[in-house]
């Protein structure tokens, strides 16, 4: 790998946001960005600002909804939560990722053991 950190594809960031919201409940944009950084062990190259594009996309698909509220420090912030449709989408995407990861893993393992006839 050229870079130490992984570049994120558009779809995968969306998935991460959904998963985080499903696990942690309501969060604001900053909180989400920080959480993803933490969980990925800082391996993810993320301009925190890109999260706002993802948030708007997810909103338009109807997978998350937003509400203005007060943060811990009484700052005004927009809070996001996952919707029922979002949970469904999350479940589908997760299953698909697991399948793909399994296939890729097997394929790559094959190469390491030496070529098969």
């Amino acid at each position, binding site marked *: 790998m050229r870079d130490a950190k992984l570049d994120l594809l558009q779809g995968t960031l969306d998935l991460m946001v959904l998963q985080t919201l499903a696990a942690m409940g309501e969060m604001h944009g900053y909180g989400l960005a920080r959480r993803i950084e933490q969980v990925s062990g800082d391996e993810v190259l993320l301009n925190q600002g890109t999260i706002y594009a993802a948030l708007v*996309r997810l909103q338009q698909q109807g997978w998350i909804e937003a509400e203005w509220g007060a943060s811990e420090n009484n700052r005004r912030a927009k809070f996001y939560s996952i919707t029922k449709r979002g949970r469904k989408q999350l479940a589908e995407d997760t299953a698909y990722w697991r399948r793909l990861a399994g296939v890729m893993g097997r394929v790559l393992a094959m190469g390491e053991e030496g070529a098969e006839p």
Partner: protein
Amino acid sequence: MDRELEEEIESHITMATEENIRNGMTPEEARRKAMVKFGGVEQAKEKQRESRGLPWLDTVLQDLRFTMRSLWRDRGFAAISILILALGIGANVVVFSVVNTLLLRPLPFYQPDRLVWIAPPDAKGLSDATYSVDAYEDLRSMNRSYADVTGYFAFSTPDNEKLMGRGLPQPVTNMMVAGNFFHVLGVDAAMGRLFTEDESRKGGPAAVLLSHPFWEKQFGGDPSIVGKAINLSNKPVTVVGVLSESFDFGAAFSPGSKVDIFTPVMMDDIRYSGNTLTFIGRLKPGVTVPQARAEAKTLFPQFYWGKRYPDSKGSYKDRAYPVLLKEYISGKLRRSLIVLWCAVGLILLIVCVNLSNLLLARAAARSKEFAVRSALGAGKGRLIRQLMTESMVLAGAGAVLGVGIAYALLMYLAHQGSIALPLLSSVRLDWMTLVWTLAITVSTAVLFGLLPGIRASRANVQEALKDGGHGSTEGRKHETMRTALVISEVALACVLLIGAGLLLRSFLKVLDVDLGFQPATSAAVKLDYDEDMKIEKRNAVFADLSRRVGALPGVEAVGLSDNLPLERNRGWGGPRVKGRNYKPGEVPGAFVYIVAPGYFKAMGMRLRGRDFAWSDDDKSEGVVVLNETAARGLWPGEDAVGKMAVIGKKDVRVIGVIADVHSTGVEDQPGWQMYLPMMNSEWGPDGAYLVVKTRLPPAELATSVMRTLREVNPNQPSAEFRPLQRIVDHATSPRQFFVLLVGTFAGLGLLLASLGIYGVISYSVTRRTQEIGIRMALGASPEQVQWSVIKNTLRMASVGMAAGAVLSVGVAQLIASLLFGTTPTDPPTYTAMLLLLVGVALLAGYLPARRASRINPMVALRNE
């Protein structure tokens, strides 16, 4: 929205800064680190704004860009598809425009759905659909259904007036209309005004209205002509106005002809000329057509043919049946136009099937691409959407090209004045046609794109990704589907072909009809003569004229007649046997022609008995020549020659019988006809045509004939010397036009079907390359391989033809009323078309068959 985002971002950075401060950084450093972590603020805002934009628009644009790239790579396929689509959509646009103009669009009059045409329900030809002046005036005063009633003089002939005083006398066609004609129709004068009551009365000022095209051509579009007088046949007449450009009398009422000027009918002049006026009524608001019909049933029996003859009351009983004017004008065409519409719809269907096939083949080649995209997360919906975008783009491009082709064709059609179809000159591309085009383009795209799209998205990802290739199960399923599509294509093409074949046969039969005269060797020119001349002088002039023209080289016979067959006709009360009493209505009316000696010979008519002689004038016995139908009707089983008949009140002897001549139409049954001599003052002619029999092309004779005419009458205007064949062609032109269109569609369908067959067989050979290689390696000869491919082709084609033939029988029943002299199951037509299809199928399968026979087994087996 933007403000909220600003707030959010600001809040984000503040929170990050605070956290950094908690971790021990100075406020400035904390903020700086927070900004770095965040990344470009402007960038983030941009990205968010981008994502915000209508997401579906984004994906559509993305799809479009991808489609364009993909089609550009496959330029050949795209070009062929667009061409096929253009032909199919273009043909549909043309036919829809024609149908729209002739059937759907309202007439170019004011509130045209209130206008009715009043005529006897079984009227054949215009002379049946007329009434007398007394009936007209009674109708106007006694009716309660109509705001007003108008009409026109149905016996105008072309070039019936001369425009003089502007160089050589110009022939002009004048249509005499009732004074209120334009008011009732709701046609405006573009310049000047319409007729006044005064001008419509005998003895009032002479007025004329010019048609717009005539005004432009003859007077150079000069507006100062309004109010001035012009010399019409040696009489000064004032031009009171010019009609609006959109009004075309001929287009509506006598298709294929044009009218230059209009004058008011002098009712008193024609009061006792018999039935000469057509009736057009404008219904009062709230009055329906059935109500008008009911009233006509009670009202018309009270009218007189002529009030001078009290016992002519009731001659119109049951002879008035109002129908919507639009229905009268284009109703007869409804059947043909609907058939045309269906034919062109079939073409579009074939186009869709063809294109579906092409796309399926293309999708099969791109199966790897789809598999990869599927693996990368594209949902089935996304793939289908992508493919639909492709078909929409193809259909759209095809539609644009098709509309261009259609526009050119429509412009050409609108200027074909010689085709006797009503309203044809106003055919054009309007917004309604464009809406229709949009609708069929979208449906076409959906129809041919959906099937391949669904198949492509369902493709097995694993199978396709495997490097070994085509995947045999996949390929076989594909091929079955494609074969099924081609079979349906062949069936549809078969239906079109057989339909066209039947119509062609009918047309040929129509051409074959024995017209009773020989148009190929005759030509006619309208004769000018002084109507006020005394009859003895006129007879002498005519006899002299006949002699001189007959002496010209190339002229085999000369004659005169007041009317020519298949053009205007006149009907009188029929002849009766002298001495017998008939019940009223027992003798049908007869068409009458006033002729001079030599006419029958000049027309090539077959005469039994003797022709008229110049001596058959007032001083000798009254004579008549009847046609076979009339002779048989009066004296069944006997020879009519020599018998005495009564016409009107005059005794006449039958001196000859001619074979039936078609007077109203080539396809109609000839009615009763009688020919009377011009030389007798009882039957003074109403206009005259000089007819010449010649084997030379008429153009060569024209100058010498016109010169001879001018020698006798210097006032002869420059009239056209017309070959009679042109009159016949004009009469058959609607049918010819129709056959031409349907034939073209059938040809197109055949081409598409053959392309389809070629595509499938070619694909199957490619797919089976290995198998064929093995067979050849095992000893099969190239001929055997070739033959098996051809057998496959024939098998596929014959299934399609069988289905098509069965369908055709059904379809032919539907168009039975359009056929002439041909049964819907006419064996020669079916056989010929089926043979044609077999031939074409063989041709289509031949190239792939040759390719198959050329397969090198070594190469085929090696290639996986």
